[in-house]
């Protein structure tokens, strides 16, 4: 089994869930911050994108880490879920939850939905399969001390705007992001618990912060399609 031998241990499995989850959350925070650059205009967003592409092998290191995290996160969660179903073959005729949040009880389902959403999201914006017509290049002038050159770069700004002007795409995105938010609401505080950071005097605060962070991420992300649809951003395209 090699690398997957951790799956034999319930706690190590949970630790893998927490660590890979933490990586994905960190990525999501950076991704969200990057996306917000759309509010600083076309040039800012596109040059940020170009900067990322210029990283080359470094970008690939990030990508590999992300892909590995996603794969481990999914495999582990499936294994845990099957074990859990097996451990409780019969439920109660009547069940009252005292503390388990809705978001906690639906992790596997929000997880599956997020997986589908992310696949679509990648096909749309990264692999540009679903809406190839949104893709175009942008020509821009670059000045330095001696000369001015005209360069070509990918027009992310335009792609995003065109995409989100489509109400259906925006709706899918908004719903997807809200589901991500639900997932995070449980996930972030859970990560601290699993990794052993829970003392009575700070954990309730940490749980609240977890929810607040989830909400902030959701608001930041869904503000983009809403701004575009309402014409606040990207009206010029």
């Amino acid at each position, binding site marked *: 089994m090699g690398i997957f031998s951790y799956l034999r241990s319930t706690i190590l499995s*949970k630790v893998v869930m927490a660590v890979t989850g933490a990586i994905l959350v960190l990525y999501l925070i950076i991704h969200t911050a990057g996306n917000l650059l759309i509010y600083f205009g076309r040039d800012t967003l596109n040059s940020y994108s170009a900067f990322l592409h210029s990283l080359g092998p470094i970008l690939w290191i990030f990508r590999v880490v992300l892909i590995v995290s996603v794969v481990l996160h999914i495999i582990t969660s499936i294994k845990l879920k099957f*074990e859990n179903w097996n451990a*409780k073959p019969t439920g109660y005729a009547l069940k009252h939850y005292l503390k388990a949040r809705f978001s906690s009880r639906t992790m596997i389902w929000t997880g599956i939905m997020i997986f589908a959403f992310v696949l679509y999201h990648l096909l749309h914006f990264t692999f540009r399969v679903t809406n190839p017509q949104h893709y175009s290049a942008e020509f821009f002038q670059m000045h330095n001390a001696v000369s001015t050159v005209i360069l070509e770069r990918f027009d992310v700004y335009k792609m995003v705007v065109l995409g989100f002007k489509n109400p259906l795409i925006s709706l899918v995105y908004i719903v997807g992001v809200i589901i991500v938010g639900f997932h995070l609401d449980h996930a972030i505080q859970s990560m601290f618990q699993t990794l052993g950071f829970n003392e009575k005097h700070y954990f309730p605060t940490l749980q609240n912060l977890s929810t607040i962070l989830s909400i902030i991420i959701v608001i930041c992300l869904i503000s983009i399609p809403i701004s575009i649809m309402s014409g606040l951003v990207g009206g010029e395209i």
Partner: protein
Amino acid sequence: MKVTLHIWRQKNAKAKGRFETYHLDDVIEDMSFLEMLDVLNERLILEGKEPVAFEHDCREGICGACSLTINGIPHGHEPATTTCQLHMRKFKDGDEIWIEPFRARAFPIIKDLVVDRSAFDRIIQAGGFISVNAGQAPEANSIIVPKDDAETAMDAAQCIGCGACVAACPNASAMLFVAAKVAHFAYLPQGQPERKRRVLAMVEQMQKEGFGNCTNFYECEAACPKQISVSFIALMNRDYLKATCSGEKHLLQTQQV
């Protein structure tokens, strides 16, 4: 007061169970929940029917024998209260009450509401102790334990081994039970020499028994009649990681006698 009871009846481990409905008209508010069931059982016996098998013993909330999932909550809705200490004044006249056994694969049903919780004993057997023989102990006050640590250890050690944590957990995880014992010893200087070995051995046995994984629902803490905190699970996770990283072996040393 009057109540309607829907009670899970199951002849034995293999038989198929089902709910049966009983009406009780003469329930008194001062009765405990189990005394209410006693009344039902006495009636059933006199009618020549088998009484409802349920476990109970001390009836003062400490032995951990009583169980029952009452209206979907192990030990019922009253916080920090075992079934035997739950009183009928906490119910209303005309209430319908659903009574089910604790459910988990690791707690197979024996009969009606009686389940087999011996998995807990085997977990303790695997490492829930300090290996000290009678006679070996040093003078008691030579071991100093800061008051706060002793109190926290006691918070954990209060566990009555009833299994409500497992019953409440949607995954039937026993992490709170195991963590309570691990934490009890982890907070005491006496528990340090075997700290790593203990957590590894107990967690391994827990897994062998077929309990589910902890997914941090915290239902266990909410259902625990002794209000044992899930922060002890965090402590156990930490200890387990440390022990794993240090390459600790947890096999019980067979002791030479």
